[in-house]
């Protein structure tokens, strides 16, 4: 029974994920005709209406394209992961994280309100953290999860600031309004700040150089996660954001050049580094960075054709990249290695996988009749149409694509053909759930390539129109005749074949040439190390473990702050030298003063603490005289309990003089500080007394206590009704402090008992 329980544990969440994804696909598909005809669907639930924050969503061409990719790929990732994670002890948690991620990602691409968008943005970061660190016994996985969280989380903070500024400049918190209205954000004085902050968010999330290093490290996650989050969906969130703000922010030289340069550098650099990798999964991870760079580069342009190229490439990339990741996962699963040098001859063992890999690789390399070919032709057409520097964009695109062709050949050919190798386990055909995904994705790439009109008109054109902000439909066709893009394609393929032939030489050469460069990863370690060191130094100075030091700092800062303000603001007031007060009040004053002297002279703690108790009781008496019986009563009780508690503690401490008695010079300093603190407090009290009392609140409470709070005791009505939230906060603090102190006391006695 127990074993069967273990077997079936991951079943329910696994199927739940698949079925939820499937339901999402079906629902999204039903929306396609309406959205393709230009309709924008909306729903809004008030959240914090006073701040203009709504829980609002809308569906246009761009959102729908992303939603379909997220749910559609989710179905096959779900099937794949069920087989991949089979037998793992925490399959249930794994699928729960996946569902969590998928919901967050859908929320992100459908969000209308910027706060809604931001919340879902952060949730994708959190779920990504959980999934990268899923193998939490591995230190590497934990470190890489942290890294992804810190990098994308820091970008998220920048994004929040940028979005808030954008809302301020554009006069709305709804993205749909910010996009359509001629919002004038580009002329706004805050434009540059908005741009920088939003780009920081997008670039960290979508792994642009120099923030790209977290993405290859995120490959510590199980392969289904790499295929889903870190190639097809989550890393596209930054691209989605760039596309989303395109109508209101693009077109300025700042936008064009930043996106073009960062995108081009990312694309070329990532494809060079990808060539260097021997681990196929890592190589694919770098090609994802390359794809993200390409998308950024094209979104830098205003030209409609460039945007269409970006949207087409987005679809192409999702299809082939998730397929190839799943293929690498299969190879890893069946042979136990992903090192290209150790793979070969697997075709016999897994022909279906090999064919799917080949089909996906063809699409990646941009061969006809696959959708990748159309994507590439559009890219070249778009590159020639960009406003910034067509040669730069086209050159970067050709260079990156040529390396892609070479790498696609490596991934599709090297593991499957050539001499069979010996592996740790005998490779055989993967289960159905694992190969159906790559096969379906590859088939989709082929179908869309042969008949591109449907996907073009129903999905890509509406998305591109939403990004460009104008209606202009590009005609999708496989064959455009002999033109410049075709020539560029031929050049790309020729270069790519050369890259493949010399791939081993190239890899060795790159390894030696790039070996000594400072990587982003090392920079991350350096920055993190420096922050931790700073924290160490600061803690050693401020929190050295000596209570005396803490108190000294607290009192010194208070005295300096309050005293300084008093002097600067000129709030000093001098009372009459001998105020006219009854004799018994003088008696209390003397009592308090005497109580204060006792601890200074006392040779035992008990005497000292009793002296302090006298001070408190004296203060309670004064409260009583001045008409605050509630406060007086509480003060008295607190004093009693304080003395009892402290006495209990003191019974256990070492003898007084041995430890706590500070050296003479230290005592002099303490005395000075005590005198100054007391003096400042006295001056402040005098200053307060000198200010005419504003009885606005007093009158309000007097008038409203009985009618509003049904109570005659104003203090209590304030505590439990008018300002009940404050009281609530206080009792929670009391409860937490008690539990914390309890833990410390028990911890100490356990340790003492253990030793």
């Amino acid at each position: 029974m127990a074993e069967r329980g273990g077997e079936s544990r991951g079943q329910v969440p696994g199927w739940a994920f698949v079925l939820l994804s499937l339901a999402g696909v079906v629902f999204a598909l039903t929306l396609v005709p309406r959205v393709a005809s230009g309709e924008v669907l909306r729903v809004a639930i008030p959240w914090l209406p006073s701040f203009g924050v709504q829980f609002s969503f809308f569906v246009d061409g761009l959102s729908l394209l992303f939603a379909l990719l997220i749910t559609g790929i989710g179905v096959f990732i779900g099937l794949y992961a069920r087989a991949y994670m089979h037998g793992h002890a925490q399959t249930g948690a794994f699928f729960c994280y996946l569902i969590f991620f998928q919901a967050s990602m859908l929320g992100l691409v459908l969000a209308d309100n910027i706060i809604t968008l931001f919340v879902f943005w952060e949730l994708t970061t959190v779920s990504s953290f959980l999934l990268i660190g899923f193998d939490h016994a591995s230190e590497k996985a934990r470190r890489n999860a942290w890294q992804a969280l810190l990098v994308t989380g820091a970008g998220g903070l920048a994004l929040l600031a940028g979005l808030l500024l954008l809302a301020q400049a554009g006069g709305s918190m709804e993205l749909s309004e910010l996009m359509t209205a001629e919002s004038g954000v580009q002329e706004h004085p805050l434009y540059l700040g908005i741009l920088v902050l939003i780009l920081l968010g997008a670039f960290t999330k979508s792994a642009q150089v120099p923030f790209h290093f977290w993405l290859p490290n995120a490959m510590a996650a199980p392969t289904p996660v790499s295929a889903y989050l870190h190639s097809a969906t989550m890393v596209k969130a930054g691209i989605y954001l760039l596309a989303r703000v395109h109508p209101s922010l693009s077109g300025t030289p700042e936008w064009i050049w930043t996106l073009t340069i960062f995108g081009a550098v990312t694309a070329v650099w990532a494809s060079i580094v990808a060539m260097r990798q021997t681990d196929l999964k890592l190589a694919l991870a770098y090609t994802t960075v390359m794809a993200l760079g390409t998308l950024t580069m094209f979104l830098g342009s205003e030209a409609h054709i460039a945007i269409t190229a970006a949207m087409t490439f987005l679809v192409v990339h999702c299809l082939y990249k998730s397929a190839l990741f799943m293929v690498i996962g299969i190879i890893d699963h069946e042979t136990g290695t992903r090192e290209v040098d150790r793979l070969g001859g697997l075709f016999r063992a897994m022909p279906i996988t090999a064919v799917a890999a080949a089909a996906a690789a063809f699409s990646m390399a941009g061969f006809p009749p696959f959708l990748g070919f159309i994507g590439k032709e559009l890219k070249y057409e778009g590159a020639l149409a960009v406003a910034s520097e067509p040669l730069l964009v086209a050159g970067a695109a050709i260079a990156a694509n040529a390396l892609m062709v070479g790498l696609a050949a490596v991934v599709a050919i090297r593991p499957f053909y050539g001499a069979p190798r010996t592996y740790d386990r005998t490779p055989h055909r993967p289960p159905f759930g694992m190969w159906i995904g790559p096969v379906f994705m590859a088939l989709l790439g082929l179908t869309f390539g042969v008949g591109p009109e449907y996907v073009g008109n129903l999905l890509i054109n509406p998305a591109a129109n939403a990004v460009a902000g104008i209606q202009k439909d590009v005609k999708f066709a496989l064959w455009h005749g002999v033109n410049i893009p075709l020539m560029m394609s031929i050049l790309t393929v020729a270069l790519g074949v050369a890259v493949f032939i010399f791939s081993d030489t190239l890899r060795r050469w790159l390894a030696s040439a790039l070996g000594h460069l400072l990587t982003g990863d090392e920079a991350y370690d350096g920055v993190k190390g420096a922050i931790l060191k700073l924290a160490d130094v600061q803690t050693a100075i401020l929190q050295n473990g000596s209570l005396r030091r803490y108190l000294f700092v607290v009192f010194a800062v208070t005295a300096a702050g309050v005293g300084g303000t008093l002097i600067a603001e000129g709030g000093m007031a001098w009372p009459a030298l001998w105020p006219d007060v009854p004799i018994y009040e003088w008696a209390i004053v003397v009592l308090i003063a005497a109580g204060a002297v006792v601890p200074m002279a006392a040779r035992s703690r008990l005497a000292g603490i009793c002296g302090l108790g006298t001070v408190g009781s004296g203060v309670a008496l004064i409260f009583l005289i001045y008409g605050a019986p509630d406060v007086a009563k509480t003060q008295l009780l607190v004093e009693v309990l304080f003395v009892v508690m402290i006495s209990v503690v003191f019974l256990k401490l070492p003898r007084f003089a041995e430890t706590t008695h500070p050296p003479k010079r230290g005592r002099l300093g303490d005395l000075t500080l005590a005198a100054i603190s007391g003096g400042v407090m006295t001056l402040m009290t005098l200053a307060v007394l000198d200010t005419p009392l504003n009885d606005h609140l007093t009158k309000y409470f007097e008038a409203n206590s009985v009618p509003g709070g049904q109570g005659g005791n104003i203090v209590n009505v304030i505590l439990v009704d008018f300002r009940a939230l404050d009281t609530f906060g206080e009792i929670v603090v009391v409860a937490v402090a008690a539990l914390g102190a309890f833990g410390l006391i028990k911890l100490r006695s356990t340790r003492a008992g253990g030793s």
Partner: protein
Amino acid sequence: MNSLILSTVARAVIALMVLFSLYLLIRGHNLPGGGFVGGLVAASAFLLHAIANGVPATRRLLRVDPRAITMIGVAVAIIAGLVAAFQGAPFLTGVWAFPGGVPLGTPLLFDVGVYLVVVGAVVTLVLALEEDA
């Protein structure tokens, strides 16, 4: 502490103190008193019990772990605050009912929560310290 006089006197005094603490709690809304001060009086009572009869005896007397009392107090305060939600009013808005002319309101329930938190927190600390000694 093992003193016959103390434990004998304590028995009577503790009962009075707990009674007095409840009295303070209930009358607090109109006259000096309230959950906080009432809680302190009750805590002092249990403290006296612990000093007179030892911590194990006090734990037996309480029956419930004082940490649980603290958390129950927080929960009571939250519930008192949530009652307002049924009227569509914000968290912690006072809601009153007058069954037979007796004013009963969520502020009183909230004060009970405060009382429990104070009793629980102080007793938790003191008993832990005493045990550790």
